């Protein structure tokens, strides 16, 4: 479940709840942004916790009273029918598209939605209390860059280039904060010997967040929304040459991306540099976004989701490998500072053990790589690609 809530709206949540429910239902506002819902017998059956978030969205969490789960599910159903959207739709970047519309038009629509998601998460990132905002912002950002790169031939080259630059700049401001947040999340909070390390990481995170916040409040950022919008306008005006239909371009890109990954992956052996795994993972993300943003809307849905599942197995292995590498690198840079801090000697030992654990995990990921990759490069997966693209 989303940390924000289960349902959301950009409208007036309380008013929408009122109109979504049968008139016989009672709705009272309790303290602390809570709504009490009573059924036609005036029995309290469900509470709604309401949160207004920066960015203008309101989030609802339904809390059933004991013995009233089914009533609560019915209420959820009514609320969704009444226009409140489930949380997963928040991340839903997919937009409708027709196979034969020009690729630039379809790509612009996808990009518009992605920029909207990115923008909506910015205020929450600035508040800085929940990592989820930053995560969602970064995913939307990465997806947008993928769309620009993969659909390049259909876009105005200069504008597309600048669009990418701006997006990359925004992502770069958030990377260290995100990495530290993830590392802190993986640390065992109960391990006392890790306390000095935790403290150090928290202080680093604070610093990283302060830097990020300053950049996100800078004029470059405040103008970013407009900049991106106008760049998108220009970029979508097409590249001048004949623009292919989106289905044709998407099929080409998916086929090519798969082939590229098969080639890169085949070159990876047990002793290959970590960077090669990382590069393959980045390619994998691009393929995944292509499949999710265009594949599902345009092609054989069954084949697309099967290919995504196969790809996901590979990406999990690569993700584990990469996360371990990033965390290990961070820990190594901390060693001198950690040694000098109070309780540092013990903490250093604990960090050493942690590092050894990460290396073991990374080694295990390497061992799992062949199996995951051969699934992805298998004739069956190739068959799926053919089914999607031909």
């Amino acid at each position, binding site marked *: 479940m989303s940390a924000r809530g289960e349902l959301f709206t950009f409208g007036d949540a309380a008013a929408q709840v009122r109109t979504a429910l049968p008139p016989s239902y009672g709705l009272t506002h309790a303290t602390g942004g809570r709504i009490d819902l009573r059924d036609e*017998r005036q029995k309290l059956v469900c509470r709604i916790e309401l949160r207004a978030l920066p960015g203008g969205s309101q989030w609802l969490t339904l809390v059933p009273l*004991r*013995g*009233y789960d089914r009533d609560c599910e019915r209420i959820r159903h009514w609320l969704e029918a009444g226009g409140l959207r489930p949380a997963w739709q928040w991340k839903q970047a997919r937009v409708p598209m027709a196979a034969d519309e020009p690729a630039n038009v379809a790509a612009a629509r996808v990009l518009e939605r992605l920029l909207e998601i990115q923008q909506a998460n910015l205020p929450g990132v600035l508040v800085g209390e929940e990592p989820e905002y930053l995560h969602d912002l970064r995913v939307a950002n990465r997806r947008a860059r993928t769309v620009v790169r993969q659909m390049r031939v259909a876009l105005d080259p200069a504008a597309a280039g600048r669009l990418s630059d701006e997006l990359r700049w925004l992502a770069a401001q958030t990377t260290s904060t995100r990495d530290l947040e993830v590392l802190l999340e993986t640390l065992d909070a109960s391990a006392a010997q890790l306390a000095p390390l935790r403290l150090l990481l928290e202080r680093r995170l604070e610093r990283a967040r302060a830097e990020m916040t300053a950049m996100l409040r800078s004029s470059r950022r405040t103008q970013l929304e407009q900049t991106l919008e106008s760049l998108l306008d220009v970029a979508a005006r097409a590249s001048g040459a004949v623009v292919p239909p989106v289905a044709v371009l998407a099929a080409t890109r998916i086929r090519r991306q798969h082939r590229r990954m098969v080639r890169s992956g085949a070159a990876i052996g047990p002793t290959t540099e970590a960077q090669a795994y990382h590069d393959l993972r980045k390619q994998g993300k691009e393929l995944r976004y292509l499949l999710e943003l265009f594949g599902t809307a345009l092609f054989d849905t069954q084949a697309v989701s099967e290919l995504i599942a196969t790809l996901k197995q590979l990406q999990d292995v690569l993700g584990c490998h990469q996360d371990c590498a990033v965390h290990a690198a961070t820990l190594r840079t901390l060693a001198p500072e950690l040694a000098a801090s109070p309780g540092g000697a013990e903490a250093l030992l604990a960090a050493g053990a942690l590092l050894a654990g990460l290396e073991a995990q990374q080694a295990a990921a390497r061992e799992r790589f062949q199996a995951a990759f051969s699934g992805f490069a298998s004739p069956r997966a190739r068959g799926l690609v053919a089914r999607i693209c031909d």
Partner: protein
Amino acid sequence: MANTARDTRVIATYNIKGGVGKTSAAVNLAYLAAAAGHQTLLWDLDPQAASTYLFRVRPKVKGGGRGLLRKRDSAGDHIKATDHERLELLPADFSYRHLDLALDQFKRPAARLRKVLAPLRADYDYIFLDCPPSISLVSEAVFEAADALLVPVIPATLSSRAYEQLEELARAGKVGRRNGTATLAFFSMADVSRPLHLQVMERLRGIEQLTVLGVAIPTADEVELMGEERNPVTVFAPQSAASVAYKALWAEVERRLHPDLQAAGA
């Protein structure tokens, strides 16, 4: 608090006579117990479902009374939250009118309610049983399950028959199959301005085997209004005489049930 550390008390409002204030007492006292911070359950054993109605809950138990008794740890599945913090309800069901027959299917019918309640003890500090007005297998099972019988007595007309039954009840409590089942009578719908009431009250307080509590619940419109408000008195008329009386009654009952706590508090 660790579940196992709970020192649960089961309290049954009981009287063979109907309409004496059993349900009113169960509902108000259970509410007060919960309001004071105790996890509280009220089991409405009466097919008439009066307390279920007062808490706005649908009088329906899936599988009926028989199903509920059969599976020893299924009672929890039927529990409903009331609108009040910490107060939960095991609703009545029309099938409870055959609860006697259902109990009779077990080898030890009188032990059955206690067994069904056993797993719930971990979750509640107080469990109230609101009983139908009868003497039956159900009441036997209630006697065995309860730590205390709370018996409302209207001091108006005490027929000699009812009087004998009370005495009998008191003896049963004393001899009790289970050690320490207390029988606590209290005056319900009392009117101290009427000589007859005072007379009856005095006479009953004189019975040695019978514990009569000091607090009496006066006749009050607010108690009758509960049916319309569908709430305990304290919720809609906290300052009323009835609310004050129920609070005092609860304090007295709690003192009786937890003499140890009182000693520690003193």
